[in-house]
């Protein structure tokens, strides 16, 4: 059994085991053990990656290839580089944290954990695949359980939100599929067979006309998931209705599939198309960065604030990817990781606050620092991390993005960059507004004087997310060098033209 396929097999086995569990207690223990094993595997993978990297200089390591559909040349091909290894680690941490946060879910626990792990399987599969078709299949596996998770366990107008989210993402997948097929049917340009294998296609020169046509399709197909303006509207409603762990997983990892897919497929395979179209998407993503931040400024529902904040932060990822240079790409990946931990932490905290006060409206909250100090202090820390305070992961990522974006000296790039940088001010405003209203000030509701204490599983969930966030912010060198080294072969492809 190779090291990567296990990332799909273990969740599937966990799901099978979950089918036989009887009640919440058994279900959560099973889910926890399964996720713990995955976390162990992800950590093991990082170490093995470093060992292997020292001797093996190929783009992808631990590559495996099994034929799936011979007729269309579809393979179950797997492989990782530093980027996917890091994202796998992110996923495993967030899944585990999500299980802890859902420790007390009382409504259909077994089914809930099953859906959660199906989602996780899709994400793992997506990150380990290097075959376009397999990737697409896993992508769909990850997206579809969202409908059930929101529709069944959600709150508020859950059916509406679930439908909206699924339809928009499905619409995007349709566009994406056209893009992928476009790449596929041009993959024999140098006389070989048609192939879905990314590494094979990267050696082929796809005709410029095809690149120009299929890049925007592929980009938009993925970018909808990455909350590109103006396709972000599923995100606030979807997040607001989703249960806590689902929001965590969705914003924490699922939305990262967008940026990762763009990087791995759109940029890598269609570099000329990327150059041709980058100006257009730079405008959209720069708008998204500032628009999301201003959008968050006005909201009063905590989940809406975080959703708009995600639009802004992930706009930064897309913005960085479009800068087409090493530093900015490094920043994009770091921002994906950083936002993953940060936003998952935020959603977890929102869930805890909601679970205690039964409201997410900040105008009804106040003075929480006095009643639930632990959650509030972590909330302050997460807020400061989100506004890019040095010492946390966000700062590291943003600085890479800004320095990378500043490598272009045309006026257009300069203006777009300065607009993006100005988001650091607006971000500070909306974060401090929330912290000020929600945590500080007098307690304005007598019911909030006595709220339940933080439990061990909540603390575990929080620490799982907090520690990597601080770790990345304090000592970023190993991670950023690992990612940088993996970007090298990709950037070569883009810079060739």
């Amino acid at each position, binding site marked *: 059994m190779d090291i990567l396929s296990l990332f799909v097999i273990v969740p599937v086995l966990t799901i099978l085991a979950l089918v036989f569990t009887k009640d919440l207690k058994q279900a959560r223990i099973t889910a926890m053990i399964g996720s713990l094993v995955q976390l162990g595997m992800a950590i093991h993978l990082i170490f093995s990656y470093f060992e292997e990297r020292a001797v093996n200089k190929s783009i992808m390591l631990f590559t495996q290839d099994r034929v799936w559909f011979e007729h269309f040349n579809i393979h179950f091909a797997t492989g990782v580089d530093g980027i996917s290894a890091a994202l796998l680690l992110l996923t495993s941490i967030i899944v585990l944290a999500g299980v802890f946060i859902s420790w007390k879910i009382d409504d259909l626990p077994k089914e809930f954990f099953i859906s959660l792990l199906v989602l996780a399987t899709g994400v793992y599969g997506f990150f380990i695949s290097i075959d376009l078709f397999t990737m697409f299949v896993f992508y769909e596996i990850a997206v579809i359980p969202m409908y059930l998770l929101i529709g069944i366990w959600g709150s508020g107008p859950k059916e509406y939100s679930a439908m909206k989210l699924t339809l928009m993402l499905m619409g995007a997948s349709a566009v994406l599929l056209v893009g992928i097929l476009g790449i596929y049917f041009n993959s024999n340009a140098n006389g070989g067979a048609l192939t879905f294998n990314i590494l094979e296609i990267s050696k082929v020169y796809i005709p410029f006309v095809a690149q120009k046509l299929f890049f925007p399709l592929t980009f938009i197909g993925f970018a909808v998931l990455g909350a590109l303006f103006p396709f972000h*509207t599923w995100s606030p409603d979807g997040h607001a209705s989703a249960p806590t762990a689902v929001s965590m997983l969705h914003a924490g990892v699922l939305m990262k599939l967008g940026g990762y897919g763009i990087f791995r497929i759109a940029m890598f395979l269609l570099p000329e198309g990327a150059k041709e179209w980058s100006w257009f998407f730079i405008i959209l993503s720069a708008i998204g960065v500032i628009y999301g931040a201003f959008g968050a400024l006005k909201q009063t529902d905590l989940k809406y604030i975080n959703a708009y904040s995600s639009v802004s932060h992930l706009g930064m990822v897309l913005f960085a990817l479009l800068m087409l240079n090493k530093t900015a790409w490094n920043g994009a990946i770091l921002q994906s990781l950083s936002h993953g931990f940060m936003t998952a932490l935020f959603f977890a905290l929102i869930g805890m606050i909601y679970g205690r006060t039964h409201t997410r409206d900040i105008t009804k909250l106040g003075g929480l620092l006095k009643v639930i100090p632990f959650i509030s202090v972590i909330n302050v820390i997460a807020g400061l991390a989100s506004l890019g305070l040095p010492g946390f992961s966000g700062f590291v990522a943003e600085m890479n993005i800004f320095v990378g974006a500043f490598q272009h000296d045309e006026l257009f790039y300069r203006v777009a960059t300065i607009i993006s940088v100005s988001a650091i001010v607006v971000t500070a405003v909306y974060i401090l507004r929330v912290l000020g209203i929600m945590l500080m000030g007098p307690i304005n509701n007598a019911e909030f004087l006595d709220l339940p204490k933080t439990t061990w599983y909540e603390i575990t969930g929080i620490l799982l997310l907090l520690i990597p966030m601080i770790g990345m912010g304090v000592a970023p060198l190993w991670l950023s060098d690992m990612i940088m080294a993996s970007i090298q072969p990709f950037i070569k492809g883009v810079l060739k033209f």
Partner: protein
Amino acid sequence: MDITYIILIPLIPFSVFLLLGIFNQQIKPAISGYIGVIGLSISALLSYYAAYQYFFVYGKVDEVYQTFVKKTVWMNFTDTLHIDMGILVDPISVMMLVVVSTISLMVHIYSRGYMKGDDGYTKFFSFLSLFTFSMFGLVLATNLFQIYMFWELVGVSSYLLIGYYYTKTSAIAAAKKAFIVTRFADFGFLIGILIIGYYTGTFDFETLNNPEGSAILNWASTSYMGLSVITWALLLIFMGGAGKSAMFPLHIWLPDAMEGPTPVSALIHAATMVVAGVYLVARLFPMYYFVEDGFALKIVAYVGAFSSLFAAIIAVTQTDIKRVLAFSTMSQIGYMMLALGVSGYKGIEGVGYMASMFHLFTHAMFKALLFLCAGSVIHAVHSNYLKDMGGLRKYMPITNITFLIAALAISGVPPFAGFWSKDEILVAAFENNRLLYYVALFVAGLTAFYMFRLYFGIFWGKETKYEHIPHESPLSMTFPLLFLAFMSIVAGFVPFSELVTADKIGFEGHMDYPLAVVAVAIGLTGIIIAWLFYKKENDLAAIFSSFFGIFYKWTSNKFYFDEIYLFVTKKIIFDHVSTPIARFDKKYVDGTMEGIGNKTVLISNKIKGLQSGRLQDYAFFFVGGVVVLALVFIYIWTN
């Protein structure tokens, strides 16, 4: 010179922060105070040792003070650009170590008395340690990015400490305001750093500041809108400095920051953090001086001079004693900026630079003292307002005498510390720019006046009926007062011109007697006017202020700058940018997406009639389809 041990100076407060922060609930308040004080004492002793070693033993080689650097790569951006973490030891960083550790230690000791019995005692000390760590990191930074990082950290410590009384609405608002205004300034700072990084290929101070280095020599290679890009970068960096140092028009956060506990005001908003902007310009002084013939430096001088005058005028009318001190701080920092701005580089021409650093040093001592005295007074009468005070000299003899010393020092009366440093600033301004000299001279008079207005108002004047008889503060609070009073007397005798100079080669200090006499005369005039107005209760002040009429009203309302800012942020940004965006998002962006969905439903409703289940319909469509296709094919074939 081995500088490794200097790393301990910031690391000790950092460990104290972690210890007190994590075990906040477990550690007893009494113990946490001791931990803070002991930790900082060690840092302070190490700083003094480092200063001794640097200035008097190893620092000088061939009459030039050397720069010692120890650093390691923290993160790589590109092959050439990277962020380093490390320590840089040169005259100004060592001087700042002494300032920060001295004031911080005194504030730690003072807080043990002042904060006694407060709920968040341990939390308070952990924040103080966090601040001290960040400030040490800032002064020791080896490159622009490192200074930016610690710059942000001092900003956040300031936020946490201003908002320390977090149940008070005004404190939260003040903390938020301070952070956001400085963040806005840092936005400029960051862009400036990015420009420097792109055009010079380095963030390193040593490389940037080398007068013969490429960063300075090639300043003219790229220009934008008539100015060198490097000048733009320096101006933007100064914007960051102006934000932190409360220079006009980014000063609005400083008066509000007085919502924080008074020891915090003394440490952060008087002596250390607010002078970070001055330190930043001094740190990059060769760049400011050489690039484009010092264009950016001239801006620094004028902004400094204007802020100095502006703040001094406002200080005259304020009634909250901490706010008077806050405006006074702003005014004095303007003085330091002015001095830097009129400075030259070589030898005695660099007197402005030396004077600026000198004034930073002495000001830290007497301004911290003034704040701690104010804290002692507030502690005794439980009010910030002058109207609630008066005649306190009988009840608080130590506070009275130390406040008097500090007031004499800031007014520039010899032989107190402020006289020496202020005199050097006036000399520098006199030789370089007469206009600024007269501004500085006028400000000196105003300073003496408002400071003694405060002094007479608190300790003399009409005696208020006190509910509780005020009493002198405990030893933990009076000891720092006495120590800083001692420093306010002796700090002026430090031979700065031999230690801290722009080109790092000392020069012979001298006294310009005519200028000194004029300055002292102006200062004494201010004091005498204050004495006439406020020593005994009389109408002179009221008559005088009514003479100014509307101008007095404007001044006491701080020229309505808060209202202007509030209008821009609240009315324009919040109501006219953010609200429409939220509405636009709901109505149009989301509306379009919804519209697509609804249209799809509509269309499918229309066409679902086709799937009627009636055989005749299907046969009709079938035949019709065949006919249409046949026609199409025939058309294609015939063409």
